[in-house]
């Protein structure tokens, strides 16, 4: 088999690209320096297409598809920066902010927050939707970490990291609709969890100030979401 049989060509934003089949549109875009906004995507864990920020237009397909869960196909024509997509990105971002109590000024992740960065990227200056202002708990029962549901955007990156990488499955999601919450064990305080290994991977996976370590001062939060993929890659290596 010659090597050319394994590559396909696709067109993304008028750029002709050669790539391997089996990759997602998002992977191909990232490899070729095409910026796609994401929130729930975290390299190293399974993609679920939940945040709807990476929606792209594909010629011949009426609906917008999420780049993180759509595989590339030969001669696919993809657009990532049309007005339609920008409009939806803006709506999605506004809804993120309107859903819970995101107050950047008093947030521990201020300046180090992926949601905040996203707001700047889409040029968010005001939110057109009424804020829900839900009553959310702040779980400080864990000796080292804090879970602040006010800042959670339900990307479930912590859930997937805990399940797929750490294998503890301390986190999951309860209820439905706007009542969804991240839970630890039987919706019990995090500190009383029988499954949590206190590894702290969820903290690094969390894109906002929803999970953070107790031993920090405001503005000094350091998160390293790239560490998750490094771990996954290292585990694949045979010694």
């Amino acid at each position, binding site marked *: 088999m010659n090597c050319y049989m394994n590559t396909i060509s696709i067109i993304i934003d008028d750029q002709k690209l050669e790539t391997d089949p089996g990759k997602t549109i998002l992977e191909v875009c990232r490899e070729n320096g095409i910026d796609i906004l994401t929130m729930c995507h975290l390299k190293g864990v399974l993609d679920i297409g939940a945040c709807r920020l990476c929606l792209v237009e594909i010629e011949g397909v009426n609906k917008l598809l999420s780049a993180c869960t759509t595989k590339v196909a030969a001669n696919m024509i993809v657009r990532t920066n049309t007005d339609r997509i920008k409009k939806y990105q803006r709506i999605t971002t506004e809804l993120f902010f309107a859903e819970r109590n995101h107050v950047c000024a008093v947030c521990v992740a201020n300046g180090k927050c992926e949601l905040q960065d996203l707001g700047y990227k889409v040029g968010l200056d005001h939110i057109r939707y009424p804020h829900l202002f839900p009553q959310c708990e702040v779980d400080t029962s864990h000796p080292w970490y804090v879970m602040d549901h006010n800042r959670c955007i339900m990307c479930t990156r912590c859930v997937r990291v805990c*399940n797929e990488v750490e294998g*503890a*499955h301390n986190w*999951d999601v*309860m209820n*439905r609709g706007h009542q969804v919450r991240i839970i630890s*064990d*039987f919706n019990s305080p995090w500190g009383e969890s029988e499954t949590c290994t206190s590894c702290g991977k969820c903290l690094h996976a969390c894109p906002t100030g929803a999970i953070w370590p107790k031993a920090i001062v405001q503005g000094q939060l350091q998160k390293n979401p790239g560490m998750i993929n490094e771990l996954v890659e290292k585990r694949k290596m045979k010694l």
Partner: protein
Amino acid sequence: MKSDTAVPVKDMPKTDPRMKLIAAKLKKENFKADALIEILHTAQNAYGYLPKEVLSYITRALHLPPSRVYSTVTFYHFFSLKSKGEHTCLVCTGTACYVKGAQAILNEIERGMGLKAGQVSADNKLGVQVARCIGACGLAPAVVLDDEVQAKVTPGEIIQKINAKIGTL
């Protein structure tokens, strides 16, 4: 053989027939994690709700993470973590029933029983619930009393039937 079958029934009286039902179901499903929903069904039907001890027993028996079980239980409306009451009265508030006066029926039940929709009486005898549509629009307004559909009910009639149910216990 497999150690799975020897799950200790902690905090549970071994003579409880309801626990026996769940244990039998677990065995029948071969302690497979993907039978979680079927087993929860059995438990829900046996207890009328899912007590925390039962959930943790099932969790341990199936070797599932507790959060996964809790997430399943809270996702499906069929399962409940609190008792729904010995008798349940479900008022359909779908479009057809609404037009035919479901609200008046619900108001009458709430007033007569001193309960709001979603609540259970203090003695745990009656629980009042509402549903969007039970799919029996031809019978509007419909009320489901203990799994029995009452067709074309009037407020007075349903109060009588509820009182009869509670009284006969």
